[in-house]
């Protein structure tokens, strides 16, 4: 492999894009993880099967990673738990408010050339950069 620091992220991205394409082509659905999980709680019962199947696939993929490449899974998260809980709440409420997250707006929305998704991606990239570079050092005393 020429340079895995470039090829691995790129190839992984192509796999993710293929996964989204496959779901739209075969199932007619958008592969947005926050929407799929969220729909489990709000969608009508006959709309739950494919969501559970997708999440089971995610779990299987996680299990495959654990078996073949355990270093790809985090052992611990790079933040103390109050920050993790705060981040989790922000991510949860934020992605529901925006009707999508990195996969729904990013991968699928940009692929559909949705103006809403483009705006969402630009906004969450900007605030994400701000949080990582300004808020994290403030909250955690410099370690980023």
């Amino acid at each position, binding site marked *: 492999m020429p340079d895995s620091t*470039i090829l691995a*992220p790129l*190839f*992984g991205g192509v796999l*993710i*894009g293929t996964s*989204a*394409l*496959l779901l*739209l*082509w075969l*199932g*007619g*659905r958008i*592969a*947005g993880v926050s929407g799929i*999980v*969220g*729909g489990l*709680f*709000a969608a009508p019962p006959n*709309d739950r099967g494919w969501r559970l199947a*997708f999440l089971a*696939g*995610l779990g299987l993929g*996680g299990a*495959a*990673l654990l078996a073949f490449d355990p270093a790809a*899974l*985090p*052992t611990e*998260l*790079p*933040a103390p738990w109050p920050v993790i*809980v705060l981040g*989790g*709440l*922000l*991510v949860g*409420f*934020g992605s529901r*408010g925006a009707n999508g*997250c*990195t*996969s729904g707006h990013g991968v*699928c929305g940009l*692929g*559909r050339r949705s103006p*809403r*998704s483009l*705006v*969402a991606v630009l*906004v*969450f990239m900007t*605030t994400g950069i*701000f949080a*990582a*570079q300004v*808020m994290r050092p403030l909250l955690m005393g410099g370690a*980023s």
Partner: protein
Amino acid sequence: VRLAAPLLSGLLFAVGLGVAGMTLPENVLAFLAFRDPGLLLTMGGATAVTLLGFPRVLRRERPVFGLRFVLPTRRDIDRPLIVGAALFGVGWGLVGLCPGPATRYRTSATFFPVGRTRRMNPGSASQVTSYIFARALHSRTNAALIMTLPPTPEYRDKFEPS
């Protein structure tokens, strides 16, 4: 057969995240701190596939195993979109986890307690909890509609990711 498609898609999604290194919050944070272009390459690779593939797929009348494509239809840019995306970005940048990796991380941790992750991840627990809250807020006004009617465009806009 109908459920094999989302299963396979989810599997591929998780493996793609793993291959890309985006299951590791460190890599996400390194990108947001301008130290590593990896996430840009991942998003670029994924978006290239969807940009090229989605229009071709949507030329079909219907999906292979479904009656119709379920797509978001809204194109307006409103306050919830901006505020939600902004909040999402802050949470994402604080911990380096977005819903995909967090879900997968949690499922592997739940299904495989002997694996590398010993304890339940409080981040994804709070993400899932906040989904329930956020859903409850959304659906209180729509509960009657959901119970009685097939999905309307408004329903789709509210409950499908865009």
